[in-house]
């Protein structure tokens, strides 16, 4: 292997990780927006669901590019076991382990989401809640493990992502989150 190819793998590996964080953030926002039952982001409700699905699949695609390119790249010293079992890494094992946990959770969440209509809503929902663990763990992995993770431009991006998801969760917890919540509640009084 020549060094130009190694440099390319290294650059693609880091860049795809940053893109994956942005797409995962968008996906969480679309998911929470869809759960509200409202036509958010200027789209009809079914479109919010479909865009949420597609953005999620694209985020998984970028995560796969991220881990495969760093697996092939000699700098990262990634081994196959690091894809599945956390905290065994040769380099920054704790921060890499967080990435492993996020990757495993993302795979499980994606599989159960694609099989949603077969496994039933209760199982789907129980597994899908893992996203609330997966997303923060992936952001911590990006900051802790990323070569540029503590540079100002990435921290600004991370702060924007955290504020966006934090705001969405605060809205999610608000009593008027679900559409028609008010009229439905009045009826049961």
């Amino acid at each position, binding site marked *: 292997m020549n060094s130009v190819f190694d440099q390319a793998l290294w650059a693609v590996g880091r860049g795809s990780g940053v893109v994956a964080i942005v797409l995962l953030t968008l996906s969480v926002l679309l998911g929470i927006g869809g759960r509200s039952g409202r036509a958010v982001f200027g789209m009809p409700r079914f479109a919010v669901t479909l865009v949420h699905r597609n953005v999620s699949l694209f985020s998984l695609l970028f995560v796969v590019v991220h881990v495969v390119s760093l697996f092939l790249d000699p700098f990262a010293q990634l081994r196959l076991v690091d894809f599945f079992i956390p905290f065994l890494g040769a380099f920054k094992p704790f921060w890499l382990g967080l990435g492993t946990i996020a990757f495993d959770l993302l795979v499980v969440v994606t599989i159960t989401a694609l099989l949603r209509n077969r496994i039933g809503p209760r199982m789907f929902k129980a597994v899908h809640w893992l996203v609330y663990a997966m997303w923060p763990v992936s952001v911590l992995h990006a900051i802790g493990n990323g070569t540029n993770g503590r540079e100002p431009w990435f921290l600004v991006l991370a702060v924007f992502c955290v504020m966006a998801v934090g705001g969405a969760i605060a809205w999610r917890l608000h009593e008027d989150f679900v559409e*028609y919540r008010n009229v439905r509640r009045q009826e049961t009084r």
Partner: protein
Amino acid sequence: MTERKVTMHIDWTRCDGRGLCVELLPELLTRDDWGYPVGRGGSEIAIPQNLEYAAQDAAALCPTQALRLHK
């Protein structure tokens, strides 16, 4: 060609009134005052042939899997 009638069943124990089906089948469904779908035929809604694909989308995308198609 054999004539077949497609109907869509709404499972009210599952329906949460999220409104996706009403967007996909505006010809057949409206929302009541609480956001739940209302159609002619109550829980069993007859689907005309030209709306079969829309009905399949509605059943597949229903967030609570409350819609079932019968042929």
